[in-house]
């Protein structure tokens, strides 16, 4: 059976998008030139609405190797991570997941993990599906047995990103609607280490809480509650 004809229009669109996104960080251009290009495309997208984000994401269809042009991933995540929840809901989880898997840049991977959490909270503002977070799956890939030995580097990176979110949030905010990302991050930490049942032992909870590092008593209490 003959394979379907390629969608030339979609291919060309993706190619041109990728080329433009690569040019956003073209070292041949000045910082002002780069900013001008970023402002132009961001203005266009924001003016047209969230539907534009779906089109924009097609650029990733023609990127074979994210490490060859990391600036595409860098700009995309920088752009969407500051947008409102309406926009985050339109952001494909597959993109930061792919960046997490393929990128060799730790900073980019941290940003990817953070963006995954943001998108998941935007999709599920009631935080009822933390157990199904893709960060839990990525953690378990790196650390199939969470309490066996020290954490693998990738698993530790995920936990660091999640705890960082909670640590950078004043407790008053953590307990408010705007603190959803911090609360979600703590829940995801919990499910990285243990399923709903059986619950973690007190010793295991202490072990996980200690990964948060130097925190004040109030936050430590909040972390312990989330881990139970």
């Amino acid at each position: 059976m003959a394979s379907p004809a390629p969608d030339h229009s979609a291919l060309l669109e993706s190619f041109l998008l990728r080329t433009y996104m690569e040019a956003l960080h073209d070292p041949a251009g000045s910082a002002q030139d780069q900013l001008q290009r970023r402002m132009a495309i961001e203005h266009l997208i924001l003016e047209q609405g969230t539907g534009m984000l779906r089109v924009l994401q097609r650029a990733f269809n023609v990127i074979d190797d994210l490490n060859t042009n990391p600036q595409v991933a860098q700009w995309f995540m920088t752009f969407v991570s500051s947008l409102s929840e309406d926009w985050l809901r339109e952001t494909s989880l597959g993109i930061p997941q792919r960046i997490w898997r393929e990128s060799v840049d730790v900073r980019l991977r941290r940003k990817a993990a953070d963006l995954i959490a943001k998108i998941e909270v935007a999709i599920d503002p009631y935080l009822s599906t933390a157990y199904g977070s893709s960060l839990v799956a990525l953690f378990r890939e790196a650390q199939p047995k969470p309490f066996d030995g020290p954490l693998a580097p990738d698993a530790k990176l995920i936990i660091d990103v999640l705890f960082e979110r909670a640590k950078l949030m004043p407790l008053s905010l953590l307990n408010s609607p705007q603190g959803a990302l911090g609360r979600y991050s703590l829940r995801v930490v919990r499910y990285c280490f243990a399923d709903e049942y059986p619950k973690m032992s007190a010793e295991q909870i202490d072990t996980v809480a200690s990964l948060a590092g130097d925190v004040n008593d109030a936050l430590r209490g909040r972390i312990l509650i989330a881990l139970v």
Partner: protein
Amino acid sequence: MGVAELEQHIEDFISKCGKSPSISTLIAADELVVVKYLPAEHLGVVLARGQLYASERAGFTWGDGVYVAPASFPLTTMMYGEVGVVGTCSAVGLKFFDASDPAGIDLYQQWITHQTALYLELTTTVHASVANRELRNAFRTRFQIDCVCFRPDEHCVNYVDATTDLWLAFTHWDAYRGVGHGFSGVVRALKWCVVVPDAFKPDGRGHKAFLHKTLSATHSFTRGGYSTLATDILQAYAAPAKQVIVCDFS
């Protein structure tokens, strides 16, 4: 000092910042009028959007944000662009951090030593500028600082007075109260109000102005316009004194 005690000191400091002499003068009215100088190439999109752009890369004093100056200091950031856009920010309920106060700087410097990974990167790697950006963003997120008020850290003779001028870094908050970047509505009701008459170039750790006051002091200036420019030029050329036309687009 442990991190919990230190963070309490920082909270206490921030709670008093709005009453510091420099900031309380600025926010005497409910609305703070600010000016942002930007390259002319950005003006079209800024006016079309009605929003300034919060920086999103290393190299800005207090991390990502919308950098402006109070309109009461109209010259102090003029070297950053050919056009000046004016707007207002609500000063009501804003959380300020007064970085012009050495006590505030001291607290910040203590706090970053507790951010182990980033502090290590700041002090021991070639990525210091990136770590600096992240530390300052983290600090502003942790304490939910809406605006950092600081003394100029780039000089420009006859424009910047580092002892009296104030620069402001406003935070663009993301959906979850983290420091964000990109187009921001933090400064509202934007109007293009200024065309900068001088020319500048980077010079060491600041900028150098070409016209003011080296050359401007020995010339007089008259107003002209595009439609009358030929006549204006001939009159200036014929004048006994050194006369320069500052023309508008009419």
